């Protein structure tokens, strides 16, 4: 029996959501609408009396002060259009779940099946809108057809007595689990057909490897022992596809690459990952010797470094690009709660202390026609922003740092980078916590959420470009509260030593989490029939690879199983014993008594053939810019400050809680009016100590158009520079590399694959060169290699993008420095030489050019500068320090001044520069590794001491009069603007 409870606002009470939607209809869609009201609808399934429904409506479901409710009667009346939006069957409905629990508690019903609730929302529109316009509002703003159903009702045909018919979007599944067998003994074309039709994303060589595996008599004998034949089961095939996916196995990063560096010489690189990334870390750690503070690198879900005697720090950054393209809100929400589980599931478990997020979008003002299946960038922006807001804020983890990057090539796939840091006690019962151990006989326990069809094929789907047939089930929606309850429970269980180790269920679901952890014991025996399901109708292979969220797989010693399960029950967390780890050498999966998969562990994990690829570098040649130097640089500076990549991101920052947990030291917004752009974040993870953690990131995709080597070098330098700017030091800074590339495998679809792969090789070379010079070891990373969109004739590839994130220990946070000018009379310094490096700059872009002179990192001189600066900051000699890069010196000076609420007089002739004759080039060159620093006059001598022999020049003074004044290279008055005007230009673009 279905009943509808509707909740609306009383007359005269502001409907904030309705008002927000109204604004978006007017501003984003350009349609006239007078009023938007919202009504929340709870469709209640179960045998409930009217009085019980009324008690639910008047009780937990509504607020008596501001809301009104109805049972099986419509609240909406007198409108032009009504749009009701609900979920499609099987899509996570967090509010429905909470409402069901609340009603059952209210009515004293224990059985979860006795009351189920499905939510939807009505948008009631008043205004001069035709049907086509109402449909557009529904499709382009209110409902995402992929996950939501939507009903449009014409006010003229409305009968309030009849209302909207109740609808429960149940998954209608029957509990008849089937195992299909797939014949791989077929020709090549048929193998590829199987890979394509099942979204396996395996290439021909890999499919052949599977086919040949089943011809091995030894393999057949083993299979026969457990009742399997010469055909592969669907569960085995799917499991292999997950495990061998680009997403999980990083096949491109591990490929054998023949690299032609443009001179015709060809060099063979056996695994970029091993050669450059792990290679750099090995070199840095070797140099650290006994002082090596790296504890666990590249082997676990996240990297681990030492914080102090008693605590370790953990950090991981992930991407969730493909799902966010289809469902920005759900994709991004899952991105953040998903990456939370990486540090959480590292070693024996860690407590989460900060989030970071970096988004790359096309312009929110994009005005051209959108290709099919692509959502408008503004919608992606808002959806992603909100998803990360809900995921981060509701989990109680401060979002301390991040950035937004804009380039219209992110139209096909936005990049959604989410990172999470954590702390773990260094030892538990005397044993190190960063090491995972599992013994044969340990139980395999799954905790947290239930399994549904959501997120099936996530790993393989993200290993492909976004295409017509991209599966909708690949999208999941996270539930931060279920996860929070689970992590609360697991931290208690950890401290009581109730389990051996744990790992997260992310890409590939159980197949991946159990498959990976089973390597520690030497095998597993798992019964899928025991897994708790969201609804009936899942076949064993679906249970095995589903990416339903909020689940951890925990290895529990058998003697502790009872205590573990009892604690879970007490804390209202679902935990289920699914089987045991073994030393059989086999990945053995049953459904009840029937074996549905039995794979040799070595074949599963190490059987994937190495890719062989070729890369060829041809330096691009762009037109040399040709435009006159503006006489007045005021308008130019304002235009640069208003560039999407430079302007204020305050509206986004404020919607993320950056202070929860109480340890905020350097916030994302700083300065006299709390609105200046911080370079990096600093927090105190332990409130009774002044030791801190610094977090920063760097990302410079524009330089990929010139040379991905310098793109990567600049990104790494930016991250390190930002950390140093607030008080970080190179002695205790670790990095994470996140590569997002467009497909670099040459094929019919990707004729320029060899060039894109050469870009990847060069980026890796830069990573090695810069991190080894700085002594910043990479401890973890991630790659996402198929960020292309291809439907019909349209192909959109992202610019090759490296996000480099750093974090490290700070001995005393009270020495931290922020970027805002502090006092009139302070001296303005620039640290570092400025070169004529405007290739790929914001200034050239504004004038319609790319150019060729890419900004270059000079690691040796930069390192000396960073060490000297860190020393002066530690000694308390620096009043303010700001990173100088995007938009160049002009932007750094303006931001320093207006964030401090102070003016500045600067003489550009004093800026150390090489071969620069134009003022615009001097203030907009993006040479990396530079800082703008202000220093109190009485500390000038001491400040300069460590910079002896380096480039550091006094270029001006902080003033009280609120003007930024620049004197030009020829002594002319070049620019004079009030800081209010500059700040307003900087704040306007994304202030929505």
């Amino acid at each position, binding site marked *: 029996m279905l009943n509808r409870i509707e909740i609306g606002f009383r007359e005269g009470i502001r409907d904030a959501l309705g008002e927000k939607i109204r604004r978006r209809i007017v501003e984003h869609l350009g349609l006239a609408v007078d009023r938007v009201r919202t009504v929340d609808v709870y469709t209640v399934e179960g045998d409930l009396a009217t009085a019980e429904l009324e008690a639910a409506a008047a009780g937990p479901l509504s607020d008596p002060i501001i809301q009104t409710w109805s049972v099986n009667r419509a609240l909406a009346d007198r409108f032009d259009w009504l749009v009701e939006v609900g979920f499609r069957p099987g899509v996570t409905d967090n509010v429905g779940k909470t409402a069901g629990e609340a009603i059952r508690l209210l009515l004293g019903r224990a059985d979860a099946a006795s009351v189920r609730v499905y939510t939807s929302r009505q948008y009631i529109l008043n205004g001069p809108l035709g049907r086509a316009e109402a449909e557009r509002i529904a499709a382009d703003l209110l409902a995402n057809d992929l996950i939501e159903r939507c009903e449009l009702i014409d006010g003229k045909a409305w009968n309030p007595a009849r209302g909207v018919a109740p609808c429960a979007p149940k998954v209608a599944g029957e509990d008849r689990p089937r195992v299909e067998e797939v014949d791989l003994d077929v020709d090549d074309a048929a193998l590829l057909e199987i890979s394509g039709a099942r979204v396996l994303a395996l290439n021909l060589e890999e499919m052949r490897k599977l086919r040949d595996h089943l011809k091995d008599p030894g393999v057949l004998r083993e299979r026969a022992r457990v009742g399997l034949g010469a055909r592969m089961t669907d569960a085995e095939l799917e499991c292999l596809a997950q495990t061998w996916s680009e997403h999980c196995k990083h096949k491109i990063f591990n490929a054998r690459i023949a690299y032609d560096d443009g001179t015709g010489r060809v060099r063979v690189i056996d695994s970029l990952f091993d050669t450059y990334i792990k290679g750099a870390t090995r070199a840095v750690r070797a140099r650290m010797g006994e002082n090596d503070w790296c504890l666990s690198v590249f082997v676990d879900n996240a990297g681990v470094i030492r914080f102090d005697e008693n605590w370790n720090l953990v950090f991981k950054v992930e991407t969730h690009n493909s799902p966010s393209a289809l469902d920005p809100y759900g994709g991004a929400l899952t991105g953040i709660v998903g990456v939370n589980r990486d540090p959480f599931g590292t070693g024996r478990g860690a407590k989460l202390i900060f989030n970071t997020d970096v988004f790359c979008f096309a312009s929110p003002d994009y005005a051209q026609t959108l290709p099919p299946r692509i959502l408008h960038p503004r919608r992606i922006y808002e959806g992603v922003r909100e998803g990360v807001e809900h995921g981060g804020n509701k989990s109680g983890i401060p979002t301390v740092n991040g950035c937004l990057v804009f380039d219209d090539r992110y139209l096909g796939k936005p990049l959604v980078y989410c990172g999470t840091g954590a702390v773990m006690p260094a030892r538990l019962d005397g044993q190190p916590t960063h090491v995972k151990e599992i013994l044969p006989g340990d139980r395999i326990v799954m905790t947290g959420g239930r399994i549904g069809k959501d997120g099936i094929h996530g790993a393989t789907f993200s290993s492909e470009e976004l295409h017509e047939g991209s599966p909708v089930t690949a999208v999941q929606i996270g539930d931060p*509260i279920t996860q929070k309850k689970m992590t609360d429970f697991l931290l208690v269980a950890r401290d009581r030593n109730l389990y051996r180790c744990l790992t997260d269920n992310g890409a590939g679901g159980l197949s991946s989490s159990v498959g990976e952890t089973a390597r520690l014991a030497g095998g597993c025996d798992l019964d899928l029939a025991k897994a708790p399901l969201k609804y009936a109708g899942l076949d064993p292979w679906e249970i095995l690879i589903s990416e339903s969220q909020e689940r951890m797989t925990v290895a529990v010693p058998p003697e502790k199983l009872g205590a573990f399960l009892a604690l879970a029950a007490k804390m209202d967390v679902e935990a289920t014993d699914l089987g045991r780890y073994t030393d059989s050498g086999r990945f053995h999966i049953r459904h009840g008594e029937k074996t549905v998969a039995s794979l040799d562990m070595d074949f599963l994990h190490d059987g994937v053939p190495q890719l062989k690829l070729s890369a060829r570098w041809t330096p691009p040649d762009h037109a040399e810019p040709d435009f006159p130097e503006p006489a007045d640089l005021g308008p130019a500076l304002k235009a640069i400050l208003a560039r999407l990549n430079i302007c204020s991101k305050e509206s986004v920052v404020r919607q993320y809680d950056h202070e929860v947990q109480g340890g905020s030291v350097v916030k994302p917004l700083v300065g006299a009016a709390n609105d200046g752009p911080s370079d990096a974040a600093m927090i105190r993870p332990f409130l009774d100590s002044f030791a801190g953690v610094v977090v920063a990131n760097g990302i410079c995709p524009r330089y990929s158009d010139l040379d991905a080597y310098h793109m990567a070098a600049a990104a790494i330098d930016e991250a390190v520079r930002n950390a140093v700017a607030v008080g970080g030091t190179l002695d205790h800074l670790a990095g994470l590399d996140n590569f997002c590339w467009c497909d670099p495998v040459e094929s019919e679809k990707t004729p320029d694959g060899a060039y894109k792969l050469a870009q990847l090789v060069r980026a890796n070379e830069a990573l090695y060169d810069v991190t080894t010079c700085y002594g910043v070891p990479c401890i973890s990373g991630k790659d996402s290699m198929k960020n292309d969109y291809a439907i019909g004739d349209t192909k959109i590839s992202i610019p090759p993008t490296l996000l480099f994130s750093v974090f490290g220990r700070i001995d005393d946070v009270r020495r931290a420095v922020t970027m805002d000018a502090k006092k009139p009379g302070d001296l303005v310094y620039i640290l570092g030489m400025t070169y004529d490096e405007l290739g790929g700059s914001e200034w050239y872009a504004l004038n319609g050019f790319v150019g060729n002179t890419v900004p270059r990192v000079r690691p040796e001189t930069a390192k000396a500068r960073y060490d000297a600066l860190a020393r002066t900051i530690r000694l308390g000699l620096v009043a303010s320090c700001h990173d100088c890069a995007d938009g160049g010196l002009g932007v750094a000076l303006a931001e320093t001044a207006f964030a401090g609420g102070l003016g500045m007089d600067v003489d550009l002739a004093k800026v150390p520069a090489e071969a620069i004759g134009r003022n615009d080039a001097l203030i907009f060159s993006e040479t990396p590794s530079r800082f703008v620093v202000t220093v109190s006059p009485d500390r000038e001598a001491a400040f300069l001491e460590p910079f002896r022999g380096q480039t550091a020049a006094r270029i001006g003074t902080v003033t009280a009069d609120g003007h930024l004044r620049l004197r030009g290279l020829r002594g002319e008055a070049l620019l004079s603007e009030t800081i209010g005007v500059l700040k307003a230009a900087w704040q306007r673009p994304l202030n929505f």
Partner: protein
Amino acid sequence: MAPTVKCIVLTGNGTNCEMEMAHACRLAGAEVVEIVHLSELLCGEKRLEDYHFLNLPGGFLDGDDLGSAKAGANRILHAKTRGREAGATSTEARLYDQFSRFIEDGKLILGVCNGFQLLVKLGVLPAFDAMERAQTVTLTYNDSGRFEDRWVHLKVDPASPCVYTEGLTGLYLPVRHGEGKFIPGSAEVLARLHREHCIALQYSTADTAAATLDYPANPNGSVDAVAGICSASGRIFGLMPHPEAYLHRTNHPRWTREDLPETGMGLALFRNAVSFIKRQRL
């Protein structure tokens, strides 16, 4: 000798400021500070009666899915607790009964953000007539329609019976919420709140001299700029801003440019609570 002050910081089901709230209690001089998971109350391992000072921290109880703290309030109203002795005949009672008893005993309750929303939706605040608890005011969506993290100035009513704000004139603290707009159920309720000086805190101008309705100083559009209210006894207090987020000067957004005392302003509220308990020998 002053009695031992025992604080309970309640957590679980989406609460997330328990750590810093417990830290505040410790800094304020409480001898016993325990972070207790809701499940420990429900299963009878812990009981509210063993403490003097109940802290309800910020967070998102049940995701605030049914409106802020609604599902959380529903749980406290209707969930049953088990008896203290394991194995003994189960003595089921409502969790709410423990709350009622705690209030009747004149003990202290501080609700911050989601904790304030919980007190309001339980009808515990303002609860002019302590025995008759029905919801008479609410906290709902900010006028901006969005969650915001920003620091606000607060004016203290010196005539308020509020135990926590005694001796204070103004505060500067962060708000971090999407549902902080205070709306009274009626003009009478609002008038009585004013009359009885239950409005201990109002969003104000930077000099904390005058309450303000102007955004963003008033970050959510609260009626009469109400930021925090107390019971007539002054012992139960709820506020949207986060005092536990400003315990040290490095929490202040401008600590690198202003001369500030070592201790953050938020600690005063907890110190007042602890010294009240010692004075009153609760």
